[in-house]
């Protein structure tokens, strides 16, 4: 069996002051090339799971491995974040630079790329998502759909090996949803999507998991997903 992209073992996590833990003895595995949907009622821990993987939250017990390496300290997660992209629920949280180009170039610049190369990568990523001519647009003046696509470009510009999407369709119109489906189907990397929209998941992932206290239970959702290639 190949090495898992992500492996969580015996994770216990509770928010401070919460009566019950979100996860207790939680186990989870994501294989390379897998496209997975995470479903479940509000508050079941879908977003928490993503934040644990990328180290924004730390478990009280258990181990997390990403790309076969165990991660526990700040330094480990800094490295993880270079290769795992997280698309936030609210694009306004993600777009903080004044202009689109600056925002998309922010990640590559942090990766140590020289400005000219960062700009080139940003332009290319924007073009790949059909966002040509957005360079000098002011981020807070974009529409909701544009904001979502630009923040996706900002994440993809870092050329991640794994993409985590937190309710990417919330508040989007049908057209933007279709564009998003199209973009995701064209990606060659693994991704996990938290979503409440079964229709969207049907088009983007092959399997879905219901997030529970101790594990993710596979469901029959998403069988009609995209074909390989």
């Amino acid at each position, binding site marked *: 069996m190949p090495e898992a992209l992500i492996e969580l073992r015996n994770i216990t996590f509770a928010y401070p002051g919460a009566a019950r833990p979100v996860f207790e003895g939680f186990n989870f595995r994501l294989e390379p090339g897998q496209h997975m949907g995470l479903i479940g009622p509000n508050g079941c821990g879908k977003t928490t799971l993503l*934040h644990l993987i*990328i180290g*924004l939250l730390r478990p009280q017990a258990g181990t997390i491995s990403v790309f076969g390496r165990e991660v526990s300290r700040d330094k480990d997660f*800094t490295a993880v*974040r*270079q290769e795992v*992209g*997280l698309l*936030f629920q*609210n694009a*306004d*949280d*993600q777009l*903080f*630079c*004044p*202009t689109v*180009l*600056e925002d998309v*170039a*922010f*990640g590559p*610049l*942090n*990766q140590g790329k020289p*400005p000219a190369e*960062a*700009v080139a990568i940003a332009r290319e990523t924007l073009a790949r998502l059909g966002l040509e001519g957005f360079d000098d647009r002011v*981020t*807070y*003046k974009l529409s909701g759909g544009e904001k979502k696509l630009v923040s996706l470009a*900002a*994440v993809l510009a*870092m050329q991640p090996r794994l993409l985590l999407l937190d309710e990417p369709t919330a508040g989007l119109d049908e057209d933007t949803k279709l564009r998003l489906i199209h973009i995701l189907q064209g990606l060659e990397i693994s991704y996990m999507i938290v979503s409440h929209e079964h229709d969207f998941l049907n088009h983007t992932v092959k399997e879905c998991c219901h997030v529970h206290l101790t594990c993710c239970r596979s469901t029959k959702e998403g069988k009609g997903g995209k074909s390989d290639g």
Partner: protein
Amino acid sequence: MSAIQEPFSEGTSLMHRLDPRVRLVAAALFAVLTAAVQTYAAALAALALALVCLALARLPMRKVLARLLVVNSFIIFLWLVLPFTYPGDVVWRWGPLAVTREGLLITGLITVKSNAIIIGLIALAATMPVTTLGQALQRLRLPEKLCHLLLFTYRYLYVIEQEYRRLVQAMKIRGFRPGTNLHTYRTYANLAAMLLVRSYDRADRVYQAMLCRGFHGTFYSLGTLSWQRRDGLFGVAAGLALLMLGYVEWGLPRPR
């Protein structure tokens, strides 16, 4: 639409094209020097310099006047108080009110100085977008944290304003009408507290998103500022003008 209007930041005039750094340094020195002068000769010279800069910036006059009107509406209050309260020779008396010569002179001086500084700042500093201002301040080696504070405040002021509007709408929809009563005060206190909490949460999430994209404490700028010969020339000219201003104030023998 932004919460902050920047009516003067766009343009192609000489002033707009000058390097923001030289403009900021000139504006800061000019403002400090003008604030310090005590004679009419120097204050009027400063006003003349400011007007020259304004001419170089080629700004829409109507908007400049509108902004000056706002500033001068504060100065009106000085005219209503200072001439009557400043001790000195009485030049005009009406009942218990007495206008002093010194009072009139000092109020006039304050008026000229404030207008000179405002016009100077409009011409030199308001002619760049806030983001460029932040970038230039950063390049001038001002504390990074202050520059970030400026840029983030600018970016999220609009978001927070929208959040405020949404909350106010939600209050209105549920029949809230402000009055002079405890319920109103309590509601506004809740509103302010909720905005604070939400801003705090948002700051947290923005920081998380930045961490996810590899942020580790330093901003890298795409750096579009480039120093050119005309910037150096403007710097020298501004320096000479400021020296002259100083000479008019402190070098010339004063008529007393």
